């Protein structure tokens, strides 16, 4: 360890968290690699439970294991690596995010982990990306704070000529706590309200005798079309939980079983918070008839989102993937930069840093009307309601429709792959692609591109990104004059 401070106490701090529902999470841990003592656990977060499934000793043992072998760590600069353990002998699964950072003046390796029982493996896997994305970002912020604190310490030592004896790294813990608790709450809410893997079509709008029976035809068309255009990522808000959930289930019909398990139904009594990264989520409006979406979290979702209000039958959507990703990254960079410049701990509290920095001017109009019409969903809806409800005919027809969409998506990927020689050449012939693949309707192209994006991440940015960035940069340059 550095001479700046003595090795931290072997005592492990623990935060117990009271949750509303059952938590599938056993514990979360923050561990680091001590140059003398090896892997050490710094902090444990555990849900408050009557019955302890894992003792602190066992948690510490497991957390230490997550850093074992990391002395050989060979990562790119700034990388946050994910390790995933299924330890059948212990009956647990562990997700660890390993990163390098400076803490107490020492460059070392750290691991933020969450531990779940092995029985939750199939529950957890669909949510893996959500959890990892959220923890990754908090680590990015925490790492900056650890670095800044070290600088401040060095300056203070130089100025005062004394060493600070108190524990320097503590301030990262509250920051991590600020994200670990929401992750626990998310998993808890998913445990009780996630959409089932199999959806009975009779619980959805597609079981209506005729189109328009339970919701307006145009609204349904817009909702499904936009839902597909935004990679199956939608927020359904309304005053009636039943109504919201019916639309949630309907939209989930167009997702894969794994994506359904990453979707959440609306709670009857009170609304859940918006959670970034879920595919479809139902949210209940408050007594004033509104639901406030947190801008930052909406921006941090991996895909653009469709906003569906079942009370007023409106459908709004965010810009397509490449634009969303670009905006997201700009926002992220801005947030991290602001964090880097923040001078006090108050400045960096969760969700407050962005208020203080006036350099941000994000476009608030992230949700726009659905501009592009499609023929695929329209034809599907026109036809599906001709089939007799109550039998499995509509499910079969839906499956056939989805199969065609997925195959079109794969064809599109293959087309681009061939045309660009696997990305070696720039893609120039979007017009030809539209004609050749019969995607001349802009909405159709958006739907197929969105499906393709999910199985081939980065496709949007590759196809549309460069001209988009160029135009944005030109605009920015022009605005400076």
């Amino acid at each position, binding site marked *: 360890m550095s001479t700046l401070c003595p090795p931290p106490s072997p005592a492990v701090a623990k935060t117990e968290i009271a949750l509303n529902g059952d938590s599938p999470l056993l514990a979360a841990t923050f561990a680091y690699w001590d140059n003398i003592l090896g892997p050490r656990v710094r902090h444990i977060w555990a849900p408050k439970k009557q019955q302890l499934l894992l003792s602190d000793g066992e948690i510490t043992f497991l957390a230490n294991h997550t850093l074992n072998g990391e002395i050989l760590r060979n990562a790119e600069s700034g990388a946050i690596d994910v390790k995933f353990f299924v330890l059948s002998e212990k009956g647990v699964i562990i997700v660890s995010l390993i990163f390098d950072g400076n803490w107490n003046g020492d460059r070392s390796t750290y691991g933020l982990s969450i531990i779940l029982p092995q029985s939750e493996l199939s529950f957890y896997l669909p949510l893996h990306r959500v959890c990892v994305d959220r923890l990754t970002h908090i680590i990015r912020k925490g790492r900056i704070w650890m670095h800044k604190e070290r600088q401040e310490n060095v300056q203070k030592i130089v100025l005062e000529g004394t060493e600070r004896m108190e524990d320097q790294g503590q301030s990262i813990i509250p920051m991590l706590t600020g994200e670990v608790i929401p992750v626990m709450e998310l998993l808890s809410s998913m445990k009780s309200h996630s959409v089932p893997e199999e959806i009975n079509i009779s619980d959805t709008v597609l079981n209506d005798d005729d189109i328009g029976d339970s919701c307006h035809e145009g609204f349904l068309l817009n909702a499904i079309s936009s839902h597909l255009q935004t990679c199956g990522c939608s927020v359904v808000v309304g005053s009636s939980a039943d109504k919201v959930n019916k639309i949630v289930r309907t939209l989930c019909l167009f997702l894969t079983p794994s994506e359904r398990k990453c979707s959440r139904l609306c709670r009857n009594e009170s609304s859940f918070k918006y959670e970034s990264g879920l595919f479809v989520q139902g949210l209940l409006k408050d007594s004033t008839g509104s639901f*406030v979406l947190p801008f930052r979290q909406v921006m941090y979702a991996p895909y653009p989102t469709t906003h569906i209000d079942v009370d007023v039958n409106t459908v709004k959507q965010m810009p397509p993937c490449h634009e969303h990703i670009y905006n997201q990254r700009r926002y992220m960079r801005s947030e991290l930069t602001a964090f880097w410049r923040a001078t006090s701990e108050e400045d960096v509290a969760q969700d407050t840093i962005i208020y203080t920095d006036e350099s941000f001017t994000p476009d608030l109009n992230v949700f726009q009307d659905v501009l592009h019409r499609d023929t695929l969903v329209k034809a599907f809806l026109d036809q599906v309601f001709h089939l007799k409800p109550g039998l499995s005919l509509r499910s079969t027809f839906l499956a056939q429709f989805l199969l065609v969409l997925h195959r079109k998506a794969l064809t599109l990927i293959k087309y681009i792959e061939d045309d660009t020689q696997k990305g070696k050449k720039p893609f120039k012939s979007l017009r030809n692609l539209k004609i050749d693949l019969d995607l001349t309707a802009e909405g159709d192209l958006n739907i197929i591109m969105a499906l393709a994006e999910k199985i081939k991440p980065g496709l949007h940015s590759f196809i549309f990104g460069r001209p988009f960035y160029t135009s944005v940069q030109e605009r920015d340059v022009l605005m400076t004059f």
Partner: protein
Amino acid sequence: MISAPDVVAFTKEEEYEEEPYNEPPLPEEYSVPLFPFANQGANPWSKLSGAKFTRDFILISEFSEQVGPQPLLTIPDDTKVFGTFDLNYFSLRIMSVDYQASFVGHPSGCAYPKLNFVEDSKVVLGDSKEGAFAYVHHLTLYDLEARGFVRPFCMAYISTDEHKIMQQFQELSAEFSKASECLKKGNRKAFANELEKKLKDLDYTRTVLHTETEIQKKANDKWFYSSQAIEKANELASVEKSIIEHQDLLKQIRSYPHRKLKASDCYPAVEPDCSQDQSADQASTTSKPDEPAETNLYRRRPSYTPKLIKAKSAKCFDKKLKTLEELCDTEFFTQTLAQLNHIEHMFRGDLCYLLTSQIDRALLKQQRITNFLFEDLFILDDKVVEKQDDMPLEYSQDKLHARSLEDCPIPKVLINVGSFKSSVESVLIKMEQELGDEFKESEVTESSVYDHQENLDYLDMDMKGSVSSGESIEVLGTEKSTSVLSKSDSQASLTVPLSPQVVRSKAVSRRTISEDSIEVLSTCPSEALIPDDFKASYPSAINEEPYVEEPYADDDGAIHFSASVSQQDLGEIEGSSENTLSQTDSACCIGKESSGLLIPNSDQTQKHCDEDGVVSIPPQRYREKQQGFHVDFSVDDINSSSQENTTEGLSPYDQDPNCLRSSRDLSKISLNEYGDSTSYISSAASTSSDRTPSPAHHIGLSSERHKKKAGQNALKFIRQYPFAHPAIYSLLSGRTLIVLGEDEAIVKKLVTALSIFVPNYGKSAKPVKHWVSSPLHIMDFQKWKLIGLQR
């Protein structure tokens, strides 16, 4: 209402990106790249910049007690695969942690060494600098000579795509668990054998020592023991102790927890050495009768000759540790390697294809009632089939049949064999069949199938779909006119949910006989699917042809009907088939026919397949699938299913997987299998160019080279020939297409080009015949969807 009050503070009109401050800018390592493909040349297909290998591979590593972590072998076993990737370093990384260590360690106070049956651990980790990500499956094998009797191993699936590993985690885990169980099962057997040998050695050594001690005792006339005698006595005691220890170990390995055995899915289903085991002597510590079945693995081999050993085996570093093969028994080791090769094959390639195929499977499972129209049902159940391959035959057949019945909620449809009509002018078609049972079964169909309203609905859908691709008559393209012999069902007759028999006869009666050489997509129910521009583009290519009826053609004729037909059926055939056959003009390039619905009995079929060079026997697996498919849709199985559901019995035809088509089965025809129309195009067609949409790529399993060639030729074909549209339409809608020509090379080229449009054209099913110079047999139309034929 959408609102975002938490960002109101942002509304100041300033620059979005950070401004130049006096403070140092955010270091790049703490930031995120602005563009997803910030690196030069990065794109969705590019590997990580640091990746030193090009394709996924499997690595088996060991934590050797002598040299530490070391790579043992890779799959594929080719140094080109992993390139300059440092296997030693990666082995060190993945084997540096003992994830299987127990919380409490070995129980204290135990006199004898304890075997700890640890469960496998699975870890996903990566090395972002090397661009390598791995699923690592840790397992422990037992070795009597190893430290603590354990040898830690791991099997790692290494890829450059991190998402692939995580998204396929459960599949990888399941497949590697099978391989691991196979290794461990073999290891337990080998370990038990080793213990038994050791016990024999010890027993023999004890006997020798005991004898020597006795001799010494007798020889010793003094009243004290010599140092040599004491040494012998100690040695004897040591051997005694060692025997007890090894007996205990043997007992432990034999009492491997039964729950774990149940959970395991190891596949050498037939245990090796079972025959030997029957006569094998029991080991010195006999097994209990109620021990798990696995204990028969551990019976001693009879041929071992015990030898004198030292009581304490030397634990030193110069001893040679057993190889993995020695540890696991060769047969199990070979099986494991086969499984690992299977895994490598299963998961290789781009993730998007894996994901799409998985989504496809899931969606196809939901479409069982319509799958028979377009899809190869058996793609869905590959795993089931694979598993069945490993099962005892009877069980496998049982399951297959049961599955077929379960999987097929639709009413079965029988197509009357006798109603077949052919139409080809210069194409010789032999038809041999047994029609004896058909009539009876038709009756059965009518009486047993359509009981439920839902079934009627299904039938309605099924018939629409099947006929659209199957029974209409179509002749495409054309330089010369041809007389057509055809049978067609109009869509109108099929929308009514009647029994198949009724539908069929009705359809035949409504069929209009046209004068022209080509008929016509307009009579095809799938007309609605044909784009308008297509219909308009080739008016000259679509003509109707007159047809001439010819129920039987002799050797000089086009079609042969030779079958063992019952008198009653013969009469029926004569009655119905007078209008079925026609002979086309020999000068015609393009003819067409409705699909062959005549089914010879199995013997005849086999004979023809053997004798006729034109008809090659498709791969066995494909045949099995055909059989299974047939089971799904044949009328007889509806009938038998109701009986067999209660009796659990199977007919001899169903039980024999090698019986491709029994006469009984063959007389019952599945709708999609035999209900296709056949189209012919000539390779000598006009060469006017045409620009059509690029075809969707077919994802088959045939070689990349072949596919590329086919793709290029297909594009040429589309642009060169005016009838490209109808030809491809025919293939895609399930009709058989024949390419007529004189030049073998040209025909073959064309067939290759068109082969990518043949549905289900994969490794296991290749319904394409590139070149046939002898007369076609009617069976050919069941087997081949695309045929190159010498004019």
